[in-house]
């Protein structure tokens, strides 16, 4: 019988397989950041162990880093200690680090792909659940806890039970206003926050094949929001074109050998998935969340649901709690929800295409009065590219704040936070209670919906913008 993409990559990394034991898998790439690694390095010290494969390990600073005044000492002493701890650990153990101020610094899941380190058929881990992002390249990539970080540092392997596989097939054409973010939010609403639990997802079908690498990363990024540790997309010409020439992409004969291998990484026609979900791309629309978990979402044209409409008692109770926390009323039109803050950024939507799509809508328009808009590039490289294209000027001319790279308001470990009761439209990945700041209320949206929302002051799609919003559009040549 044939094998799925996930099974092929898994099998190629089995170091040891024994009856009654989890498989021991080799890890090709280990990404580190400041939050989930300090206790792991301490563990190594206590056991007098070294990092086994420094050449498969890389660190950056992202969660705590400020997005303003990065040339000054970090104001929060606890954040500063955490970053200094990473610097000391990397120096002591010899790990390559891209700290704040370095040109390769940025959100760890933006940095890996742009360096060309994330490659098809590799195993990628990081002490961060959004490691699933790297599955967009046909890598088997998943988040791990700190104990496992220590395990990988010491052994370059992980003992793991093999998950089941689920195909999510999306056929047809995505409508004009529908982005990868809308698609993944719709998938999560469909299968639920636990729907992918115990599975590796494989996104496939004609609508997926047409997506750019950046859009594929947005989709795989949020696999964890459906409960799946990993999501994958088979590598193809789009993948190879993205990788060719990047710093760590193979060259010469190695490139040819790599591509020959990468071409084998497709689910066989006779392979069987443990579960399958089918989605008609044509039926999708811009999608936003109304609740406090990423599965509580609906098309932007819909109304806030009535908790009484849920048959399942725990879902009904969760919806009631969510409406109370979010300060919403059942039946209220989603488009009528006014926001205070718009955040564009994160490992979900902080790449150059995301910034371009938001900028294209803001060009010649203004952020609505009373709305604060933060644009935080996913990495320094993304920021430099955006500046080269003049996107930073578009954002600032519209009244948005153009910031330095980092995780920022996605989780508010740095000063970028919502105040209690403040409401955001955010291109990030989690709308949990207090995620963006104590008492903050989050609506997850695409970069396009974020931009339209910033202009109109309420949840909106690009189609809601009229030409009159665009006063003096920047002449194309000025970009």
């Amino acid at each position: 019988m044939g094998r799925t993409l996930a099974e092929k990559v898994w099998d190629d990394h089995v170091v040891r397989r024994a009856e009654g034991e989890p498989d021991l898998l080799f890890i090709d790439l280990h990404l580190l950041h400041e939050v989930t690694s300090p206790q792991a390095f301490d563990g190594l010290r206590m056991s007098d162990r070294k990092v086994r494969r420094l050449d498969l390990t890389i660190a950056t600073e992202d969660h705590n880093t400020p997005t303003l005044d990065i040339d000054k000492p970090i104001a929060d002493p606890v954040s500063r200690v955490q970053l200094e701890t990473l610097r000391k650990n990397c120096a002591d153990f010899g790990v390559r680090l891209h700290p704040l101020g370095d040109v390769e610094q940025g959100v760890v899941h933006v940095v890996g792909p742009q360096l060309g380190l994330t490659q098809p058929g590799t195993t990628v881990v990081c002490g961060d659940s959004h490691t699933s992002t790297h599955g967009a390249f046909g890598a088997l990539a998943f988040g791990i806890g700190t104990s496992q970080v220590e395990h990988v540092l010491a052994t370059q392997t992980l003992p793991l039970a093999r998950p089941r596989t689920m195909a999510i097939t999306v056929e047809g054409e995505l409508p004009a206003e529908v982005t990868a973010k809308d698609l993944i939010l719709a998938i999560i609403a469909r299968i639920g926050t636990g729907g992918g639990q115990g599975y590796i997802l494989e996104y496939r079908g004609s609508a997926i094949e047409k997506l750019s690498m950046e859009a594929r990363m947005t989709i795989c990024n949020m696999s964890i929001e459906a409960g799946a540790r990993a999501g994958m997309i088979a590598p193809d010409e789009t993948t190879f074109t993205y990788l060719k020439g990047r710093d760590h992409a193979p060259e010469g004969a190695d490139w040819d050998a790599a591509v020959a291998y990468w071409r084998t990484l497709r689910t066989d026609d006779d392979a069987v998935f443990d579960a399958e979900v089918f989605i008609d791309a044509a039926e999708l629309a811009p999608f936003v969340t109304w609740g406090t978990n990423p599965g509580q979402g609906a098309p932007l044209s819909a109304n806030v649901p009535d908790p009484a409409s849920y048959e399942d008692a725990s879902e009904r109770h969760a919806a009631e709690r969510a409406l109370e926390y979010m300060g919403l009323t059942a039946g209220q039109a989603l488009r009528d929800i006014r926001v205070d803050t718009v955040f564009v950024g994160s490992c979900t939507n902080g790449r150059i295409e995301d910034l371009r799509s938001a900028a294209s809508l803001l060009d010649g328009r203004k952020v609505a009065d009373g709305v604060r808009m933060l644009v935080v590039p996913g990495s320094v490289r993304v920021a430099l590219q955006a500046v080269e294209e003049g996107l930073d000027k578009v954002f600032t001319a519209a009244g948005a704040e153009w910031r330095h790279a980092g995780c920022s308001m996605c989780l508010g470990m740095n000063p970028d936070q919502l105040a209690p009761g403040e409401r955001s439209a955010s291109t990030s990945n989690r709308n949990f209670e207090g995620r963006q700041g104590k008492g903050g209320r989050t609506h997850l949206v695409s970069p396009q919906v974020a931009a339209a929302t910033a202009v109109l002051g309420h949840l909106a799609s690009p189609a809601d913008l009229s030409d009159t919003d665009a006063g003096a559009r920047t002449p194309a040549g000025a970009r």
Partner: protein
Amino acid sequence: MEAFTTHTGRAVPLRRSNVDTDQIIPAHWLKKVTRDGFEDGLFEAWRKDPEFVLNRPEYAGATVLVAGPDFGTGSSREHAVWALQNFGFKAVISSRFADIFRGNSLKNGLLTVVLEQPVVDALWAIAESDPTAEIAVDLEQRQVRATSPDGATLTADFELDENARWRLLNGLDDISLTLQNEADIAAYEAARPSFKPRTITA
């Protein structure tokens, strides 16, 4: 890791689903660089409400958390497990756990027990009608036992794969176990193709 064999203790009924790791331990607590001192951050936002179940005096000192489905969703932060342990919990019962949280808990000796929702409902009823009622979580027998207010005995078997159970019962260190296979790891490394990425050149 601390070994887990059997634990008997009073239970806290947490009637909430999708308890994500941001609720278990908010992000600002993640700046700490130790594995201890997280107890005050556990459910920090919810504990501001005096009526929140963990604040009620009758549940003080309880060691078994009985929660709704999809417990531990979201972030991979192991701090969520440390916070529960620092607070005093030895076991968590739910009908469904998020994968990463479950993996983290078993690596730290916090037993996560999966039981069908009707059994969870019954345990909630027991803990609510009699907060002094004790629940036994027996890893050797893979069984949860409690006594209903009407005197009936509730016995529910749970599943946990044999390997994970063996590691927990003996409090084994995963890294030491893996390093016993050094020869296998070295052999795999020697056979890796040259096109695989490297972060630094040797």
